């Protein structure tokens, strides 16, 4: 709770502080809880509905934490043209890894691409993608 108030205070005086606050909260706790929404709403003089509306609008904010490791796999057109769908079809399910679709990592000439944490991986084939998933599990 104290940490949450610190985050809110660190953005005091900024114009339109809600998104930066939510990013920090998401990074700190792995999700934006009901409790956090209430506190942020109070601090910014917004209704809880306003803050909830923003949290639910953006793909990056989650109301519940994700227990699994996340691999973001680009499924946009350029990676499709380079065969990502065949990789997805051949991917073995791993209960400890969530393979999430993203639409474009901006590495469109060397796909298929994935991002794990802040690290990007290009020129994936079945073996490389499988190894990435295994490394996360």
């Amino acid at each position: 709770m104290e940490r949450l108030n610190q985050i809110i205070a660190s953005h005091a005086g900024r114009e339109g502080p809600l998104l930066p606050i939510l990013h920090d909260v998401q990074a700190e706790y792995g999700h934006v809880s009901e409790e956090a929404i209430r506190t942020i709403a109070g601090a910014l003089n917004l209704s809880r509905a306003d803050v909830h509306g923003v949290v639910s609008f953006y793909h990056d904010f989650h109301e519940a934490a994700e227990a699994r490791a996340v691999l973001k796999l680009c499924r946009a057109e350029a990676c499709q043209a380079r065969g990502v769908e065949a990789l997805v079809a051949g991917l073995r399910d791993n209960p400890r890894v969530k393979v999430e679709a993203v639409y474009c990592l901006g590495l469109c000439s060397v796909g298929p691409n994935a991002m794990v944490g802040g690290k990007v991986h290009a020129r994936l084939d079945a073996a490389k993608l499988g190894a990435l998933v295994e490394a996360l599990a």
Partner: protein
Amino acid sequence: MTVVRISDDALALACGADDVASAFEAAGCTVERVSSWGMHWLEPLVEIGGQGFGPLDRNDVTAVLAGASAKAIGRIEDHPFIAKQQRFTFARAGKTRPLSLEDYAAHGGWQGLARAREIGGAATIAQVTESGLRGRGGAGFPAGIKWTTVANAAADQKYIVCNADEGDSATFADRMVMEGDPFMLIEGMAIAALAVGAHHGYVYIRSEYPHAIAKMEAAVRASAHIVAPFVAEVRVGAGAYVCGEETSLLNSLEGKRGEVRAKPPLPALEGLFGKPTVVNNVLTLAAVPWIMANGAAAYAQVGFGRSKGTMPIQLAGNVKFGGLFEVGFGVTLGELVMTVGGGTASGRPVRAVQVGGPLGAYHPPAEFHLPFDYEAFAANDGLIGHAGLTVFDDSADMSAQARFAMNFCAVESCGKCTPCRIGSTRGVELIDRIRARSGRAADKVEALPQMHNARKAERTLGDEITLLEDLCETMKFGSLCALGGFTPYPVLSALRHWPEDFGAQ
């Protein structure tokens, strides 16, 4: 000691540049991390004394240093991919360390801002107007006119907003500017601020670009004393594609849901926090320092028709030589795909090229004669958008691509207007039925006697296709922004050029 230059942009890193760099360091070389040349099929690309080697991995290091590498490509500047380009915006690509103020200044940096300060705001706008620079985000609106509107608006506060929410597949030029030459973008924003009388600027970067965010934040800090009194600030998006639309982006910056606003009022008059705001794409702002330093006439000399200057074109997807190719407008689509791009990476025939990202039309090889120009593409039911090209080989299923376009719109719709929010979902269902060749009988509700206007007869495949065309018309003309309004481009172009994929005999 041998100086080895290796890019540190996200694409090079994804291809293993760090590993190659550490191998060169272990071999006793001095490694300089520079921006990317944009020859992506050669990444990790290494430059030693002007000579290029790529794509390398750490096992190649010994051979490279011994002068016996089979991966030598000769002088990089003489490589046909580079030699054929007209690099204005990317003049420094591959040559400077992205966060070095020294390198930036030594390669012509800050000259544009100095010139703008010397001649003043009005003359700066006149230069930008004369250069013919048009918005590089896709709409192609003349930048000078937008700036004039903001400059003439009376307000206590004005803003410069840089749209760096580069969400379109096949586009990476914004990312390359931010990761490779961030000071150029800041300089462009500072010039815009000076021209219109703004003091604060925001760069709105998508969260999928962590490397660009880090570089821009560092560059903003490092250059604060140079661009003062202008203050730039980096803001991070949160995974919403629609926030690349300017009014949605403004709402997001204000801390709201990224819903599209109706226009008018134009953002130039009532933009961020209701104040006059210049919203320009990264490439638009990044072109400005060159224009100011070299003069509007030099920029306007290059180009085709009403499309002046150069366009950083991005070759992506199933293409042999993918990367960034900056050239004057007017080059044909076929030259780009076949000559520069070398055809498909898979070696199979090209079936389709999508130009302009997920909202751009699919073009068959029969349209390879089209010159790269805003008007020429518009006249052929297409758009150049942010100049990303996605090449597909003959294994592509075009009805699947049409379905993807509709589904993408359904997933990313902000929900504000009906044609986009509901039309896209109905569109996916419709394309699914067309793909299954299932036809459709009246459902339970439609069959009710009180549903006087509902169609009772079964729909044939032909009826379904007419319905899809009809739906696309509605979305095109009834949507608030380009997401719903342009989704029909990929759908209808796929339908028109590859009817066999939609069940036509």
